[in-house]
């Protein structure tokens, strides 16, 4: 599957990593729902660094849509909320 980290580009990640990423993603969502800034930071860090390790960067001329998209490593909880709240934020 293809995973994009916003601001960094797309990574090809083996499907075998799906369940591991699922767990990390669930932690991220729980942190956003609980409005827990510290848990949010560590969940996002864990997810971003795991994808960087597991994934292989797609070539620059790839034109494939991603299966999953992750907010950028420095995103705040408010950034993520805004992103999830609608498409108005996304230009292009």
């Amino acid at each position, binding site marked *: 599957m293809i995973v994009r980290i916003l601001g960094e580009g797309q990574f090809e990640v083996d499907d075998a990593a799906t369940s591991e990423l699922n767990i990390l993603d669930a932690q991220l969502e729980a942190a956003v729902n609980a409005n827990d800034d510290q848990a949010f930071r560590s969940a996002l860090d864990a997810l971003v660094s795991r994808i960087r390790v597991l994934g292989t960067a797609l070539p*620059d001329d790839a*034109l494939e849509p991603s299966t999953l998209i992750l907010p950028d490593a420095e995103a705040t909880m408010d950034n993520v909320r805004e*992103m999830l709240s609608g498409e108005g934020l996304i230009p292009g």
Partner: protein
Amino acid sequence: MSVMKRVSLIFKAKANKALDKYEDPRETLDYSYQRQLEMLTQVRRGVADVATSRKRVELQMNSLQQQQAKLEGQAKQALGAGRDDLARDALTRKSSLQTQLTDLQTQYQSLQADEEKLTSASQRLQSRVEAFRTQKETIKATYTAAEAQSRIGEAVSGISEEMGDVGMAVQRAQDKTAQMQARAGAIDELMASGALDDVTGTPHDDIQAELDRMGGGHDVDLELARLKGELSQGEAPREIEGSGAGGAASQGQAQASRPAQSADQPQAGDGS
């Protein structure tokens, strides 16, 4: 995969909107390509804005460092003249400039990181736009409107996601740059007004002022000691030369401490 899935769905919805806009999907290709070229221009402008901002911060750092060097020179001069109080004043001003300098260094690093990120985003987008153009021409030449549908869908979704990503990065960098420009403007004004030279002109609450005095005072004492050390090392040989052969070291010391002595006790100078 909740968060990542939801974010990707939002990007997909955006791409689908673009795809639904035209009856003939091949028109979508041209429309999307136009948007890509506009986005490329926007990203390049973003990179240039961040670079300009970084250079401005760099200039400010240089002039603060010059100011610090000047104050240190004045401190040395003051010590040479036996005016410890003036030297202390200059070193205190020098230490207050350090706060501004540290702040600017942080800004500089952050701008540098943004510049690198945007530059590589711009290169990525450029490569994808070229790939899209090639694919667009192939699709238009080879397929009928109906056949082209799915291939167009994929290419447009892929590039639209890239544009959304890059667009967000540019927006964020520009917001940040605008904030930094405002702060840089404020520092420029402070420098021009000379307020940065004067510690007493900086607004502080009483406790903070006391803390600063305690914390900063230590540094100043250390630096006073260092400069004194430098001065006595630098002056000793000159005194030796001037005073001839015998008892050079002790005479050098006596010479160095004479201005303070003679100020306090003029009669001692007369006696010798």
